[in-house]
């Protein structure tokens, strides 16, 4: 298919662009296969380059022959285009509609994007499972890297290499896989170096109504316990939801069959509920009514903050089991690709200082989200302005980022990255020139030949020029476990994302600059002191023979 077929009117002059907190721009609107471009064709004026993939929905209306298209983006921005001429406006609107909803992954922009920078460090090679396993091997010999899923047949949503207990052979793994939803048998998620406890993740066991059991599954998870030790199973669903799942063939671990494990149920919402929550939240944030009661009641009704609190609480609980109780943990929900990953990845941020560095956080996203098979393509197909009936869209990853931001707010000196880094990840998960978040699983990414045909987000982000604006000036490595507060008073609305386009941030940005400046100057002074000291010490040693006689 040619993009040209979809573009009936490639160019319109005299289009006026309105954006909040920015002057209006009049110029020429161009449509390309992947971008909506507006240029005033004058120097010094900013052009608008908008990826079609970033467009969540559009609205059009007419006053006489002047048409207006409201473009609502996945990054929550809303812009308005005034287009003279009814026909032009209709053509543009239908082209945007068609181009922003292309079904085929291989037509996405990453397959056409050619970087203008030289790729020095290939992001595709940065976080391979073998490397992570080497680190693990240096700490313990209880685990092995299994190739049982090398052709993705045992579990289509798992990567080809998986870390499993050393004593469990591939045959048992296959049997355990057949007992778990989507074949997602228990695998290692995190090894807590301090006490050797581990966190594993899986999907729900397929016990069904008649209480099926699977010896291999039981053996597999028991193999992770030290002698005489017990573990915790954290089921991210309420007991009622878990019970209902039995009717559909799912279920939970019966205590009789897993006597060494204690099960804890939490109440993280399912993905379709989360999408509803996001839509309501964004609607509340865009309400211009200025009424306090209305704002608070809409914020409450969206349930977004409740979701943040519940997810964080569950992650803290998992971390608490591992670090304070000295027990191993298995986390799962239903499919093990959404709430499970929120919990396991957040728990690692709490427990493991390495995850609070930029590289470590990237590795965490690779391990616990991309390779763990979070279906990004499905979840991020639409954002808060989606009109249609939601299919499988859900802000699961955005909620995770929100929770990270909450911890960052409470420990502003313990993270190497700043809020901008999290916002950037949110943007790229929904629409990007890079392909890191394309596809739903490793299997799909391999099939699409992404690493050969496209550029990884990490190849771009990790360049020093880019990295600079994501660095947290307050960062001082902190090797401790960080326990955030989950009291409602401690959890804030993530303004950087949800109010980003609704307020002027000039004052806040300037204050941030000033803070960075103070820190920078202090570092310079410290360096100066050090170099002067060295200089002095050198002179003193040179002089000493002269002075001694």
């Amino acid at each position, binding site marked *: 298919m040619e993009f040209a077929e979809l573009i009936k009117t490639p160019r319109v002059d005299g289009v006026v662009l309105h954006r909040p907190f920015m002057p209006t721009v009049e110029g020429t609107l161009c449509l390309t296969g992947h971008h909506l471009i507006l240029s005033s064709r004058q120097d010094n004026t900013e052009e608008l380059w908008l990826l079609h993939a970033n467009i969540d929905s559009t609205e059009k209306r007419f006053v006489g022959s002047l048409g207006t298209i409201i473009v609502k983006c996945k990054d929550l921005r809303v812009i308005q285009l005034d287009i003279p001429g009814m026909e032009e406006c209709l053509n543009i609107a239908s082209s945007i509609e068609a181009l922003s909803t292309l079904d085929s992954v291989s037509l996405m922009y990453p397959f056409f994007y050619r970087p203008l920078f030289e790729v020095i460090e290939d992001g595709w090679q940065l976080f391979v499972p073998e490397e992570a396993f080497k680190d693990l091997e240096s700490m313990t010999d209880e685990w092995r890297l299994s190739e049982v899923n090398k052709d993705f047949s045992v579990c289509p949503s798992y990567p080809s290499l998986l870390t499993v207990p050393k004593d469990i052979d591939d045959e048992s793994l296959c049997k355990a896989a057949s007992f778990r939803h989507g074949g997602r048998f228990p695998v290692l998620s995190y090894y807590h170096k301090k006490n050797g406890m581990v966190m594993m993740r899986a999907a729900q066991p397929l016990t069904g109504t008649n209480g099926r059991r699977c010896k291999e599954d039981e053996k597999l998870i028991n193999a992770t316990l030290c002698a005489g030790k017990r573990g915790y199973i954290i089921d991210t669903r309420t007991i009622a939801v878990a019970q209902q799942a039995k009717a559909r063939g799912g279920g939970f671990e019966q205590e009789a069959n897993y006597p060494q494990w204690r099960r*804890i149920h939490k109440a993280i919402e399912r993905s379709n509920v989360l999408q509803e929550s996001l839509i309501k939240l964004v609607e509340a944030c865009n309400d211009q009514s200025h009424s306090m009661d209305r704002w608070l009641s809409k914020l409450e009704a969206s349930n977004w903050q409740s979701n943040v609190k519940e997810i964080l609480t569950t992650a803290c609980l998992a971390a608490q089991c591992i670090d304070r109780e000295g027990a191993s943990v298995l986390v799962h929900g239903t499919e093990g690709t959404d709430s499970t990953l929120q919990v396991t990845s957040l728990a690692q941020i709490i427990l493991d200082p390495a995850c609070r560095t930029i590289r470590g956080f990237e590795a965490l996203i690779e391990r616990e989200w991309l390779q763990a098979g979070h279906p990004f393509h499905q979840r991020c197909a639409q954002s808060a302005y989606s009109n249609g009936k939601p299919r499988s869209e859900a802000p699961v990853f955005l909620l995770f980022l929100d929770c990270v931001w909450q911890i960052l707010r409470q420990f502003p000196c313990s993270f190497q990255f700043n809020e901008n880094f999290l916002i950037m990840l949110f943007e790229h998960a929904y629409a990007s020139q890079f392909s890191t978040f394309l596809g739903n699983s490793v299997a799909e990414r391999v099939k699409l030949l992404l690493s050969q045909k496209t550029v990884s987000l990490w190849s771009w982000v990790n360049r020093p020029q880019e990295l600079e604006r994501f660095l947290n000036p307050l960062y001082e490595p902190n090797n401790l476990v960080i326990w955030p507060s989950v009291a409602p008073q401690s959890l804030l609305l993530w303004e950087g994302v949800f109010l980003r386009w609704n307020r002027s941030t000039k004052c806040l940005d300037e204050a941030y600059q000033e803070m960075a400046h103070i820190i920078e*100057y202090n570092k310079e002074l410290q360096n100066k002191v050090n170099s002067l000291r060295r200089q002095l010490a050198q002179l003193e040693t040179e002089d000493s023979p002269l002075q001694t006689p």
Partner: protein
Amino acid sequence: HTHIYTVEQVKLLDRFSNKSVTGTLHLTATHLIFVESNSTSAQEIWILHHHIASVEKLSLTTSGCPLLIQCRNFRLVHFVIPRERDCHDIYSSLLRLLRPVSYDELYAFSYNPKQNDQEREEGWQLIDLAAEFERMGVPCDQWQLTDVNREYKVCKTYPRDLYVPITASKPIIVGSSKFRSKGRFPVLTYFYQEKKAAVCRCSQPLSGFSARCLEDEHMLQAISKANHNSRYIYVMDTRPKLNALANRAAGKGYENEDNYSNIRFQFVGIENIHVMRGSLQKLLEVVGTRSLSMTDYLVGLENSGWLRHIKAIMDAAIFLAKAVTVEGASVLVHCSDGWDRTAQVCALGSLLMDPYYRTIKGFMVLIEKDWISFGHKFADRCDQLDPDPKEVSPIFTQFLECVWQLTEQFPQAFEFSEWFLIQIHEHVHSCQFGNFLGNSQRQREDLQLKERTYSLWAHLLSEKQNYLNPLFSPSVAESHPVLEPSTQAYHFKFWRNMYNQYDRSMHPRQSILKHVLTLQESKRELEGTVQALKTKLQKFGVSTSPLKPQTPPRERSLPPRPQSLILGAPLLSRKEVQQEEDKEVFGEEAREDAPASTGGERTVEGSSATENGYGELMGSFGSKNEPGVVTLEFGVARMTC
């Protein structure tokens, strides 16, 4: 301090978890002091009697007799005293102590910071309102100082020195004062020099349904004429219209636009003291709830109406500032008596217009002018003496909160940080300094406060470094003198550091403010070191390049910050504070495994999983009837099957 009572083995329960510590409770003439017995971490809590709002003795439990103490600075402590007799003794002593019957019993009259008389006098001379009016450019060709209230004869609750339009003669003033509640006639409180526009304040007119007063009409005319930039003046009635209407039946009310020439009358709709009192009570109930869910928190926040009231005050102040700075019109502000809402709106409006009030000294001047001198009834509102619960209301607290909301929107516009606001709030209720005692200037003179007590302003200025906002930028104030805050509802946030200030587990474990202040401190040291090293190097004949010029060094030194602020620890002596500071390294707040013996209470608290409310995991496995499912609740593990 005279010791009255000591009880050992008292338990202090944590408000939000099941934790408790044991220690000794001391009751002195001025404080209730709890000293933890654990000799190594030994936290101390000092509670000034004046801070105690209520004491409640709950029914006896197996572990002892619970005593619940609620403080005006939003601290809530829950003691369990082993013997009921002791509990009763403490309870009844406290009841006696915290209801002083005369001003002489207030702490300010016994507090002695070891200053001599001269130092004390200098403290009181720090703030000079005549100089402040001069700074605004008053007196001038349109405004003059009147001596009509020199003897407090025209208005008992106003200060002696008042500024009025030059065309307002004494008969007009006196006539107008007779037509205004409590004699509070229109006077100048702020003069916007750039547009020659005035902010005036008064109380409601005694207009009833039809009464009028020519002198009062002349008075408003005079105010209008004093400003050539505008043909009209605004009259802002800060009450909801319904309240103003109701007042008419009592012979009071609001200005009839037909009788006053060229006025633009406007209701603003700030609720009265009783509504505000109830609102704060509801808010505190919500944020003091254990295991508070997000839904209950947000619903409670909404139902309390607190933020709605804060926004109403802010809206009014913005209206005032716009009328003055954009339209160049003079504004007359009043409510009923003109000492609550009027004070809020005039003070906040001036702060929006004038960067001076956003400095530490300027903020003190502002409070002295619009609150203290114009007779905000601190004694009644803050329940200092002879309590009438119907008179108590958090009007001044709301003003401080509005300022805090502004600091959130404009992080570089204020010389002070929120610690300054919190500390002022602390002392408005502490009765430790003379400034806020009594209800009016006249009463303060009768009490001879300047001779017998110390000034808070001197005390705060002496530790100014603690209250600085490191990001403050005077150049921003120069380029944008008038603040134009957004009034979108989402800009108004719950002020956790005020209303939950003693609930430390809720606060960020690393404070950016503190971090940057510490950097400022070390900067000075480093600059000194660089200088010293250079001098040494010069002895070797080495010339060194000057320090990077692009960052102008600011002269700031930083003594340790008082612990009483957000961290809730008692005010220790300087030396102790210093030691405490030294112990703390950034990031260590997060030390979850700090043994209790090494760090102060501060390094340990709020950093363990159990205190943060994810729930405690119940003991060991293996009991016979082991339940299948464990639900973890806030602080309590509850078992269900």
